[in-house]
């Protein structure tokens, strides 16, 4: 009792598979562009609702707001690509501003009984170094002591904020203008300078975005980062220095947050220890709306920038058309959840599309052993 039949793919199967693959790839393309589409919809809707929305001045103002979140989000993107999260960035924003205030208003060195007034460039370098230091602590906690990133950076959220309050004694540094006699003027440039007609912060956002994109796409570090976030064990076994990668992303994230803190302090020409509270959440939202996976390994600079624009334009647009603050908060939350839901949908499509494409390939190109 032995029967044998041989299966053969029909002509019909092949065309059907190819058609399915094509259809899915178009849908997938639309999904890819969803953040852009969302941004375009926002711009159209707000332009219709208000004449003052789509004016050069307003767009520049809104982009200045976006820039601060975008700079933080770029660092956050690296951390999220690794599969981590950095909750400490908002506090680093505050700490960085306070350190700038302290340095610009004169840092008394107790033992020597002198007051030091470092030049502005040194202030900027020192503030960024402080941010990197906090990031380094995050990195060491996560890699060496195996503390979960959520907990490690939650701890540093409080520690950095506490430091900012301690240094400032809870008070705001009112005047960061410096004085010509001390040679420490020019800090205002970061917030109100306009090289080539655009605010400095927008330039900073553009330069940082280009640098991070280059890092991710072209450098071996970028590849290591995507691999570590995608599958840490596989990356490790492929010789990727996983712990170094993980530490570096927190350091970069700390630096980005410190830069944002400097921009804010400079714009306001004052530094409050409370600056940057809940900014970590906006940054995470931008990264997530931009299509990055919180599980790591997936995300782009382009997406994160668009995500930051969506959040920024949405917030400012709602203000312009006069929607109440309470509704703004609610709408922002809904947008974030919707973005993640769409992302799940896209992943399902991608899997189906991949399967369909390879099935079509397998049918048209018979096995070659």
């Amino acid at each position, binding site marked *: *009792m032995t029967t044998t039949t*041989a299966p053969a793919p029909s002509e019909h199967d092949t065309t059907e*598979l190819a058609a399915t693959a094509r259809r*899915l790839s178009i849908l997938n393309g639309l999904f890819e562009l969803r953040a852009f589409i969302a941004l375009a919809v926002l711009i159209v809707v707000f332009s219709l609702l208000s004449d003052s929305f789509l004016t050069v001045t307003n767009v520049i103002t809104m982009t200045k707001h976006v820039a601060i979140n975008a700079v933080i989000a770029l660092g956050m993107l690296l951390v999220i690509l690794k599969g981590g999260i950095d909750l400490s960035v908002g506090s680093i924003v505050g700490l960085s501003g306070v350190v700038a205030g302290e340095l610009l208003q004169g840092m008394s060195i107790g033992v020597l009984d002198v007051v030091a007034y470092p030049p502005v460039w040194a202030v900027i370098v020192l503030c960024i170094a402080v941010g990197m230091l906090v990031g380094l602590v995050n990195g060491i906690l996560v890699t060496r002591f195996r503390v979960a990133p959520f907990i490690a950076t939650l701890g540093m959220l409080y520690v950095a904020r506490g430091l900012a309050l301690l240094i400032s004694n809870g008070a705001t540094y009112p005047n960061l203008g410096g004085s010509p006699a001390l040679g420490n003027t020019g800090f205002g440039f970061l917030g109100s300078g306009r090289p080539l007609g655009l605010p400095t912060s927008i330039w900073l956002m553009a330069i940082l975005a280009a640098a991070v994109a280059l890092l991710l796409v072209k450098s071996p570090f970028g*590849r290591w980062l995507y691999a570590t976030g995608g599958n840490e064990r596989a990356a490790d076994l*492929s010789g990727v220095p996983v712990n170094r990668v993980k530490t570096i992303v927190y350091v970069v994230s700390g630096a980005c947050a410190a830069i944002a803190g400097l921009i804010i302090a400079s714009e306001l020409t004052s530094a409050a220890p409370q600056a940057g509270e809940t900014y970590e959440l906006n940054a995470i939202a931008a990264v997530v709306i931009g299509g990055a996976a919180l599980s790591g390994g997936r995300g782009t600079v382009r997406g994160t920038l668009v995500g930051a624009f969506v959040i920024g334009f949405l917030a400012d647009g709602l203000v312009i058309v006069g929607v109440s603050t309470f509704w703004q908060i609610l709408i922002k939350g809904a947008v974030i959840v919707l973005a993640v839901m769409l992302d799940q949908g896209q992943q399902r499509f*991608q899997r189906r599309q991949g399967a369909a494409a*390879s099935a079509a390939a397998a049918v048209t190109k018979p096995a070659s052993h």
Partner: protein
Amino acid sequence: MTAVLRAREVTKVYGGTHALKGVDFDVAAGRVTALFGENGAGKSTLMKILAGIERPTTGQVELDGEVTQPRSARDAADHGISIIHQELSLCPNLSVQDNLFLAREIRGRTGAVDRAAQRAATTAVMRRLEEPIDPDRLVADLRLGQQQIVEIARALLQNARVLIMDEPTSALTAPEVAVLFRLIRELTAAGVAVVYISHHLDEALEIADDVVVLRDGALVATAKARDVELSWIVSHMVGRDPDALFPDREPEIGEPVLALDGLVVADPQNPHRLAVDQLSLTLHEGEILGIYGLMGSGRTELLEAVAGRITPVAGTIELGGEPLGTTGIRDRIARGIALVPEDRQRDGLVQTMSVGQNISLAGLARFVRGLFVNRDTERAAVSKIISDVTVKTSGAAAAIGSLSGGNQQKVVIGKALLTQPRVLLLDEPSRGVDVGAKADIFALVAAQARRGLSVIFTTSEAEEALHIPDRLLVLARGRLVGEFRRGQITREDLMSLSDGGTAVPTEARERAR
């Protein structure tokens, strides 16, 4: 012969892929039906449909002649169909009895879990399986083979009329397999229908009454087990001559390349246990060295220690006469040691990256010019690897998930080869790989060895152990218990050695031939 469970014209489509194409499949009461097929042939999909985990796209399932599509695994179990999964589906943080009665707890009058009754039932079922495991032990503390037995016990407790076993013996020793087979005989004598799936084809044929072969989602052959031989099954699975699987080779063996001396490696899961115990071996240039050992024999820890993932407790590893010390994976890759891990999903592949990015990951340093990766040289090297290791893919940009198991394995091997190694370590390279891809993989390894690459591969399949390597070492409980040239050892000797010297029961031995 009555069919208890029957699949009628079952088709399953995932996206655009036809996993099953109109399959008719009968399971007879009191008989063992062995289901054969390469990976991706549709075996697991068919079983998932029968067990209610998946639903067919078209077609139907009949139980006792009535159309019954189980809506869930729970529903299927209520209908008397239970399944032992290929992947262990136990909760390691719970005790044996908690796992056995998970979601089916025995309740007392108050509604509280009756632990005494559960414990008694657990002890009884473990006695039937001749594995006296304490019902209150954590599953995490059991060795892999014991966990598999717990998995089997869970299915037994459900008093199923149809019992589906998908790879139930991958971590079992020969005596444990013998116990399982005796139990299967008892069950079929009591009228239970058993569906048996195993990569160990000879083992499945031994226990089977009926044989069914799937290929590319279609049923290609059915027969009575007594009417057919292994070669008949393999040729239907592959659709070509199985003798081509193990080509002869004339090894050119050179100088020693890798030398391990007195290597001791602690078990990373349980530091009090030694995974590798005082192991010494020498690997020569151009040699293919096989290590035969079951899961848990220490083979993975051995290779990981050589690759630099685990630091040995004692002993030395020398590459080309130079001691490697305690350097990490990165340094060892640079010196020419590459590992293809056993579990490619967990340790081998980055699912979020493309085929090409996976292939270049370990050898990325070769393409770095200044600060950046030179993508042109990378692309050229990657496409060379794709054609060298014959990955069937739409291109380097394809998603890893779109490839079959065999092709994914080729990607991991390609990644290792791209680092231009002197020593290639392959941990169960044929696990979860279909017969065709298996032949490709070993042909590829042989071709690399001819060019002077030294290879160590581990296997738990006797056929591979006997036919592929130039020299075979047998590993049991972390120690080398035998060393053979090709053709010096028989299958039976191998089986008994791998259990750590325990003799195979004569009954099982006779049937294994």
